[in-house]
C-alpha cells in the first residue's frame, strides 16, 4: 500500500500513508484505525503508525444537521471546519464557546484535542460545551454518548486524541455574542514577573487573555512581551464597524532552512516588541485578527523550510509558583531553540476530559525548528515539567519519550482502562504507538 503518498501534520515531517476521503463518514470509518480532520495538530497525533493503516479523512463530511437559533445548539458532522462555522454563524450572532488559535480545524479535531483558547480561565475547554457525540467504535458499532449516556466513553473521547473511536457527529452549544467584534486591549510588559501579575489581574477583569513573549530576551528583559486581552464589543461599540472578509495570503513556497535562525528571530522579536509604541492600546477589531492572527498567512508552516518544526507546549501548575515559570523561560533562553512564536496563557481549573491538557496554572507554547538538538531539547524541557508537576499538550507533541509521558500523566491508567473497556486498542496513531504503548 506504500505507493509514495504521504501524510503530514502542521509541523511537516511527512510519513508514508494515505487517507480515505469521502462525504460519507460512516462508510470510511468502518475498519479505520484513525480519523483526521484538517491536519493542524503539530505532531504525529493525526498520522498513521504504519503506511497501510486505514485513515479516515473527515473534512468532506461537513454537514450541519441542525441548528436552533433559540438555544444556539448546533449539531454537525465531525468534518465541519471552524472557519465555516464562523462564516455562517458570526453574522447571526453566535460564536463557538471556545476557539483555538487557528480556525482551520474541524469539530471532531476540536473534541479529540479538547482545544482551549484565550478564554480558558472563564470557559474551560471546548469539551465542556459539547452536549453529545455520535461515535463509530473500534468494533464498528455506532453509539451516541454524552454526560449521561456512556459518560466514561464521552469523557475519555474529549481530549482522547481519537483513540476511543471515530467521532461522527458533534452537538455543541454556541455562545450568543453581542456583536461580531472584539474590544482588544494590548500593552507592553517589561519582564516575566510583570507578565504573571498582568495575566492574573486580567483574568479577573477580561474574559479573554493571552500573552506573546519575546523568549530570546535575557537578563532584566527576560519574559518581556505584549499582553493582549479582550471581550466581545457591545452592539453600540461595534456601531459603524463593517464585517469584512479577512485578508488572507498564501506563503507559496517553503523558505530555506536558514531563513528562521536565532538571529532573524531576535530581530523579529525586537521589532515586534517595539512596534507596540504606546504602552497601552485599545481598539475594536474583527475576530480574525484577534483569534487567528497567523491564519492570515496560509501555509505559514513553510517558513521553517523543509526541515519542519514542532511546538513545545506545557502547563506549569499554579502551586509550582512564578519561580517555575521564570526558570522555564531561563531554560528556553539557555537552550537557544526558540523561534518568534512564544505564547503564555493563564489556565483555569482542569476540565472533565480524561486526558485534557490544561490545568490551573500557566501554559507556555513555543515553536521550534527541527534541528539535530530537538530530541535533547524536548527531553530537558520535559524533565523540568515533570519536576514542576506539569504536563505537555499531546496535540503539539512529536518528540516526548514514553517514560516522560508516563511520569507527567497520572491519569493515563484511568484512560487506558476506559479504552480497554471499550475494546479500542485496534485504534492507533503514530503518537499512540510512541506514547501510549500501542502495538507498533
Amino acid at each position, binding site marked *: 500500500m506504500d505507493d509514495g*503518498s504521504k501524510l503530514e501534520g502542521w509541523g511537516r515531517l511527512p510519513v508514508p500513508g494515505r487517507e480515505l476521503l469521502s*462525504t460519507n463518514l460512516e462508510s470510511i470509518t468502518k475498519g479505520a484505525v484513525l480519523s483526521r480532520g484538517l491536519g493542524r495538530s503539530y505532531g504525529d497525533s493525526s498520522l498513521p503508525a504504519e503506511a497501510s493503516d486505514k485513515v479516515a479523512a473527515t473534512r468532506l463530511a461537513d454537514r*450541519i*444537521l441542525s441548528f436552533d437559533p433559540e438555544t444556539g445548539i448546533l449539531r454537525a458532522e465531525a468534518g465541519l471546519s471552524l472557519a465555516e462555522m464562523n462564516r*455562517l454563524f458570526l453574522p447571526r450572532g453566535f460564536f463557538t464557546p471556545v476557539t483555538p488559535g487557528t480556525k482551520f480545524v474541524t469539530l471532531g479535531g476540536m473534541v479529540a484535542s479538547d482545544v482551549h483558547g484565550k478564554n480558558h480561565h472563564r470557559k474551560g475547554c471546548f469539551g465542556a460545551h459539547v452536549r453529545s457525540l455520535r461515535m463509530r467504535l473500534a468494533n464498528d458499532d455506532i453509539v451516541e454518548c454524552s454526560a449521561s449516556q456512556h459518560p466514561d466513553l464521552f469523557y475519555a473521547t474529549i481530549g482522547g486524541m481519537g483513540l476511543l473511536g471515530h467521532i461522527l457527529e458533534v452537538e455543541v452549544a454556541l455562545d450568543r455574542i453581542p456583536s461580531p467584534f472584539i474590544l482588544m486591549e494590548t500593552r507592553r510588559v517589561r519582564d516575566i514577573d510583570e507578565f504573571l501579575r498582568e495575566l492574573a489581574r486580567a483574568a479577573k477583569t477580561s474574559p479573554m487573555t493571552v500573552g506573546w513573549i519575546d523568549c530570546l530576551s535575557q537578563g532584566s528583559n527576560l519574559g518581556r512581551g505584549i499582553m493582549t486581552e479582550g471581550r466581545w464589543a457591545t452592539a453600540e461599540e461595534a456601531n459603524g464597524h463593517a464585517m469584512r472578509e479577512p485578508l488572507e495570503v498564501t506563503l507559496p513556497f517553503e523558505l530555506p532552512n536558514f531563513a528562521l535562525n536565532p538571529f532573524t528571530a531576535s530581530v523579529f522579536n525586537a521589532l515586534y516588541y517595539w512596534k507596540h509604541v504606546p504602552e497601552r492600546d485599545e481598539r475594536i477589531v474583527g475576530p480574525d485578527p484577534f483569534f487567528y492572527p497567523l491564519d492570515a498567512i496560509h501555509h505559514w508552516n513553510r517558513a521553517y523550510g523543509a526541515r519542519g518544526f514542532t511546538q513545545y507546549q506545557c502547563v506549569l501548575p499554579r502551586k509550582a509558583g512564578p519561580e517555575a515559570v521564570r526558570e522555564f523561560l531561563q531554560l528556553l533562553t539557555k537552550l537557544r531553540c526558540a523561534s518568534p512564536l512564544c505564547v503564555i496563557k493563564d489556565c483555569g481549573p482542569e476540565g472533565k476530559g480524561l486526558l485534557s491538557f490544561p490545568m490551573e496554572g500557566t501554559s507556555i507554547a513555543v515553536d521550534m525548528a527541527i534541528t539535530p538538538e530537538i530530541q535533547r531539547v524536548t527531553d530537558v524541557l520535559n524533565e523540568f515539567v515533570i519536576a514542576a508537576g506539569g504536563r505537555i499538550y499531546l496535540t503539539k507533541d512529536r518528540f516526548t519519550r514514553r517514560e516522560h509521558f508516563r511520569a507527567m500523566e497520572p491519569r493515563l491508567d484511568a484512560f487506558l482502562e476506559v479504552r480497554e473497556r471499550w475494546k479500542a486498542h485496534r485504534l492507533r496513531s503514530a503518537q499512540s504507538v510512541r506514547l501510549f504503548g500501542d502495538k507498533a
Partner: protein
Amino acid sequence: MKAVVLGATSGMGREIARRLVERGDSVFMLGRDVANLQKGAGDLKARHPRGEDIGYAICDLADPRTFAPALDAADAALGGFDTVIVTAALFATQDQLEADVELTHRLLTVNYANTVVFCEHARKRLLARGGGNLAVFSSVAGDRGRKPVALYGSTKAGLSHYLESLDHKFHAAGLNVVCVKPGFVKTEMTAGLKPPPFAGEPSRVALDVVRAIDARKPVVYTPTIWALVMLVIRWLPRFVMRKIGF
C-alpha cells in the same frame, strides 16, 4: 432564483447548493439516496437566512424513468423553477474503464446519453415558461482527445457539443445555457488521484459557477487558470500529444 440541483448531495453540487441558499435562493435537491438527501436538506435549511425548508426527490442519472417525476416534484415544491444545475456524473480512470467494458458502457450512457436526456426534459420545461438557466457540468477533459481521459473525456466532449448547440438554438428564446468545465477539483470523485498543479477546491468552483450563471456566461472554466491550460493543450500538435502522457 429557484434552482433544482441534480447532484446536490456531494462534491461541487453540494457547494453550489450551499452558495445559493446562503444568499437566500430556493433550492430543490435531486439525488440517488434518500438518507443522504434528507441530511443534505437539513444542512441547506440551517444555512438559509430564513431557514427555508428544502425539498428533495430521488433522481438517478442511470435511470431516465426517474427524470420527469423528479422535475415535476421540484416544480410543485418550488412553484415553478427557473434554474436547473447538473453536477452529477460518473467517473472512472482510463485504466479502470479499459479493463471493464461493462463499466465503460455504464459511464458512456450515464455521462452522455442520459445527461442529455435529462437536459432535454429540463430545457423543455424552462422554455415553456419563457426561459431560465441551465448549468451543466462538462469537463476540461472534453476539450481535447487525451490519453488519460480517452473514454471519460469523450462523454464530456459530446456533452459540451450538445450544450453549445443548445445555447445557439435557444439563447434568443431566453435559455441561458452554462457549460461548466472544471479542471481537477479536490472532491470525493478525485480522491485517491494525485492532484496536478492548479487543482481547485469545490467551494471556489461553486463561487465561479454561481457567478457564471448570474452573468449568463455560456462557458466557464474553473479554476480560471484552466482556460489557459486548455488553450495551450488544444493547440499542441498531434505528434506532441502522441508523446506526452497528459
